[in-house]
């Protein structure tokens, strides 16, 4: 078990050295593993993987096209969001304003009718 744990540590050191591109450190890690052929084989495999995984870049035309598309989508979403945020309270005010205005107009009508009846008598 302790050997397994130490293998993990050695492999980790080896991987860190590989990623850092530090050949001397890679060699030191390999020296630590020299008595364990299986561990050396795992290091070989890690080195192969490091060689296979290279940085990949998105094609330029795709990047540019997507950027434009995203900015349009972002602005659309932002404008819609802003409009909702601004108009949301206004809509509420309009509703209550209209409701109060309706009540006031009904009340004014009633008062007018009452005054008219009273003056008629």
């Amino acid at each position: 078990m302790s050997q397994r744990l130490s293998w993990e540590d050695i492999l980790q050191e080896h991987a860190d050295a590989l990623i850092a591109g530090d050949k001397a450190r890679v060699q030191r890690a390999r020296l630590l593993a020299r008595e364990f052929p299986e561990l050396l084989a795992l290091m070989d495999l890690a080195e192969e993987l490091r060689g296979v995984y290279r940085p990949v870049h998105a094609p330029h035309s795709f990047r540019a096209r997507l950027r434009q598309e995203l900015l349009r989508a972002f602005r659309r979403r932002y404008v819609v969001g802003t409009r909702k945020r601004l108009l949301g309270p206004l809509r509420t005010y309009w509703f209550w304003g209209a409701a109060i205005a309706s009540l006031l107009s009904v009340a004014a009508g009633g008062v007018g009718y009452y005054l008219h009846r009273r003056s008629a008598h």
Partner: protein
Amino acid sequence: MDLGKRPSDKELLYRAREDPEAFAALYERYVDKIYAYFYYRVGDAGDAEELTARFFHRLIERVHLFEDRGVPVSAWLYRIAHNMLANWLRDRSRRAEISLEGLLYHQADGKRPEDHILMQEEQERLLEEVRRLPPDRQQLLYLKFVEGLSNAEIGRIMGRTEGAIKSLYHRTLVSLRRRLKSDGREAEGGEGNRRSS
């Protein structure tokens, strides 16, 4: 903003909630990484483009959901990418259809064409085997060898401890080696240490 200082990912992400320019800067910072992540996982440039586009559209919807809980922005983004990919693979059952054609096109290095073809075949076999690994192991290899992240950072992305990542890395190599051996790869061209077990 301080003109001389490059904004951190977090600053950019917070600004990107309302500022399209900040969103564009965040996009420029991550588009290649996200594209490469999908590219290595699905093995097809067209699918990687589709997934990358979907990812950033989703990011527009989710950018306001990020909360600073000590998790790096990159971890948050890779989690979104990871979940998206898992859904995509499940929905389309694409795993069996992955094409490796052209995956290694970027490795032109001046070698003789026949050497290059042999090397490419060898690398294709290796990547094929990597793709047969469980998704978390593929993700670990990608984050380690392409992104060059530390175990602590990978742990934050994958929701595991640093020690668990170290252990997973060991088990991944062991399992990959076993698969390659059973595939007869050793008999064809393995050398030195790999034979000695």
